[in-house]
């Protein structure tokens, strides 16, 4: 493991047993993510991106292999340990927002900051993603992009995004990506982004290409583009 690696994954496999048949979601994935790195994961549906993201986020456990976060093994962690891991280190951004509808934008951010260590107040974090004006609005009063930015403003050490722009038009999607890169730049948040949208790979430090439960290729972008320069 390299010195500044946040995540280290070795031969990670995941098999789902549904009915009589085994479904191999991951067939031995090895990779590392460095602190502050932005990685984009590309690949067709069912290629294992989401499974790996869920395992990295402590929502799921590998069938075999090893996943560690800052040197701590996640593969054998208990349910409670995974809960604490998510609480203290991980932020998720899903395609369908996942905000608590009965809490305002600021309260949704505070929901996390109240239970975890955080460098900023909810208001500061919302300012960072450009939502100061909207902080007292409920999710139902926010657009999809705004909701996604609220989710990003939760300022964890690791941000795991599964199709964050999947439900958004491109202009709104760009604003969400800007929020992601701002947070990454300002707080050094290690960020993994799953997308079907190949254009987005230009904002990453590195790109993982998934095929059939494996990382088929990895490449490093020589120059990163700003989200506003990306089009799809």
């Amino acid at each position: 493991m390299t010195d500044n690696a946040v995540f280290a994954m070795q031969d990670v496999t995941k098999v789902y047993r549904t009915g009589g048949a085994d479904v191999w979601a991951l067939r031995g994935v090895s990779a590392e993510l460095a602190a502050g790195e932005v990685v984009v994961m590309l690949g067709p549906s069912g290629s294992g991106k989401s499974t790996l993201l869920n395992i990295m986020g402590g929502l799921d456990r590998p069938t075999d292999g090893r996943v560690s976060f800052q040197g701590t093994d996640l593969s054998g962690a208990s349910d409670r340990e995974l809960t604490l891991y998510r609480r203290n280190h991980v932020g998720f951004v899903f395609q369908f927002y996942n905000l608590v509808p009965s809490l305002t934008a600021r309260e949704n951010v505070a929901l996390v900051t109240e239970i975890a260590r955080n460098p900023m107040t909810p208001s500061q974090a919302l300012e960072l993603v450009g939502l100061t004006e909207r902080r007292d609005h409920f999710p139902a009063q926010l657009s999809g992009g705004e909701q996604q930015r609220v989710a990003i403003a939760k300022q964890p050490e690791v941000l795991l995004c599964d199709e964050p722009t999947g439900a958004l038009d491109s202009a709104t999607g760009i604003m969400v990506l800007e929020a992601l890169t701002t947070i990454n730049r300002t707080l050094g948040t290690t960020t993994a982004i799953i997308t079907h949208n190949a254009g987005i790979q230009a904002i990453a430090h590195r790109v993982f290409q998934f095929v059939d439960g494996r990382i088929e290729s990895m490449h490093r972008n020589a120059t990163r583009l700003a989200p506003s320069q990306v089009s799809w």
Partner: protein
Amino acid sequence: MSAVGALDRKLLRDLMRLWAQGLAVALVMACGVMTIIIAVGAHRSLLLTREAYYERYRFAHVVAEANRAPLSLGKAISEIPGVASFEMRISRRVLLDLPQMREPASGQVISLPAHGDPRVNRLLVRRGRLPEAGRANEVAVNEDFAKAHAFRIGDSFSAILNGRKERLQITGTVLSPEFIYTIGPGDMVPDPRRYAILYMPGDVLGPVFDRKEAFNNLVLRLMPGASEPAVRMAADRLLKPYGGMAAYGRKHQMSHAFLDAELDQLAAMARIIPPIFLLVSAFLINIVLTRLVALEREQIGLLKALGYYDRTIAWHYAKLVIAISAVGIAIGAGAGTWLGRGLARLYGEFFSFPFLVFQSSPDLYAIAAGISIAGALAGAMKAILSVLALDPAVSMRPPAPARFGRSLLARLGLANLFSKLTVMAFRQLLHQPVRAALTSLGMALGVALLVTALFARDSVDFMVETVFWRADRQHASLAFGEPAQPSVMAAVRHLPGVVAAEPYLSVPVILSNGNRSRRLAITGKPPATTLSRVLDASFDPTVLPSDGVVISERVAQVLGLTRGGTANVEVLTGRRIATTVRISAVVQSFLGLGVFMDIDALSRLTGEGPRVGGAHLAVDTNTLDALYAAIKSTPAIASLGLQTLSRDKFRETIDRNISIMTTLYLTLAIIIVFGVIYNSARIQLSERARELASLRVLGFTRMEVSQVLLTELLLVVIVAQPLGWALGAGFAMLVTDGFASDLFQIPLVLEPAIFAKASLIVLAAAAGSALLVRRRVDRLDLIRVLKTRE
């Protein structure tokens, strides 16, 4: 047709998936159906059985009592317009000396006509035969008495007939429409071991009771359409010269009046309890179906897009409701029939009917089922209408997100005092205030039913304490066959073992105020007594004033009398004096229609000089046998009441009845609470699965996530408690009002412990259903929930 088949398959699968919630709703509905069947079925059973029995065995419409009237009045009686048939009888109270009983039992002996079976109040001979005219030692007895002593035909026992001990041989056991419900002197519930009805030939009883060719009791049956008051007046006119008392109708006949009281209670139960369950089940159907329609919004859109008629889809959901109702109706009908039969058996112990079959006629089930389904569909109506209103294009898109408002907490700046999880719970509640309020109401009804179930024991305890320990503290009460001179008290005090004796006099009167009147007895007592006492409004013994009458709250209420006012009194014995009396106080008395007066003032009122009708005794319990022996050989003593035995029998009977009632209400309450909480929690969970899963993803523990749901439930449960207490107090009041009759009243005693117990039981039921839901929170599939759109 195959398309309908597909929808029906969906229906079956929906039902299988929703089985727990559906069952919870069905059980609540079953309670409604069950209580309809029990209450209405028992009401019908009693009423129809009574009517049939009355008709077949010619139960008298009018009873008139006299002192000694000649049988030669028969011709004049037969000429009273409207009289169909009549019997002139001798009816006397007697003491019985029974094997294996130290104390004398009491009984009422009634003469049989020379021709055998009476034309009015006919006897149903269960075993053996009626005594034959002229046979001095033959007797027929009521069946319950024979059973209580395991007497068989040909067995004999002793009775003290006007002071003479006679050995009587049982020729038969009988039932009479006149004695469906029978209680002995001083008793509050039937005790056939200590109280008997005896039938002996009139030509034997006449000479024994000094009424040869005479009678003291006249029973009349009327022709259809005859005027009862007119017949009563005519009978009164004929009997007046012979010590006649005002004739009375069935309304004042003890057995009939008690059955009326029971019928009233059943009618009240049918009016109050089933609607509660039908309302709650309609509410539950409403929330379950509303949620289901919300979840299946896109499917509904799809079906419409495929070309299904709106009405086909609406009918599909209506069928789901009907299916759930059918389960509820089946369970309720089964339980209702079973419990109804049990109730009929219980009635069989109290009431002497030749037969009492629980009336479970098909129309009763049809009515219960119809009402339940109608209630359920009414509850489902809003959701079904929303199915009709859904536009297919709109419904295939996700619904508009729920809008929340800033709560009062936030506006007051208090939101920061609570954790965000608590704020979520508050807002969710305020977001659907009607549903939260109805959920609370449902639970409050559970609390209220428990209060209703639990208060009865305290109230009866209080009643027993008041009646037996504070008011009537005597060991025994003697009644003389005829009123005696006050000097008789010296003889009473000399009876073996008598420590203290107090005279009393009971005079039948009609007390009236304007057009309201009651036939009752004024009880005369010495002004200050230590045994049988009159209690004032605060349950302290009071001294009877030297003039005026003291009336119980019940009398004050039914006649509209107040302290300081006056009432008209018509004495029904002796010279039949009519006058007015002043109401000098209103006091507490739970038994009968209590009216009390200074014994001397009462004697003056009757215009017959000082007299004593009986005596209350305190006795040395070590010499009881001597006392009983002396009483049995004293001709003047016609009956004996024993407080301890009356109290024990009352306790035993009431305890059992209360246990049955408490168990029933407890079951009903738990079902309602469980049904309401379980369904509310499941629906909340379904609506918020995504939100709760999000919290888990954010790193909240299972405990913390459950806490959001449980806080909401807890708030609803807490709000329900005071509401439930208030409703429970109201129900308890309705129950005591329902029980209140001229025969007895149950005081309303609501101890704080009752409310606490009711709440604890509800909280336990709530905790049970909350735990079931919590287990589901624990099993939330985070990844699946989050990947799907709501």
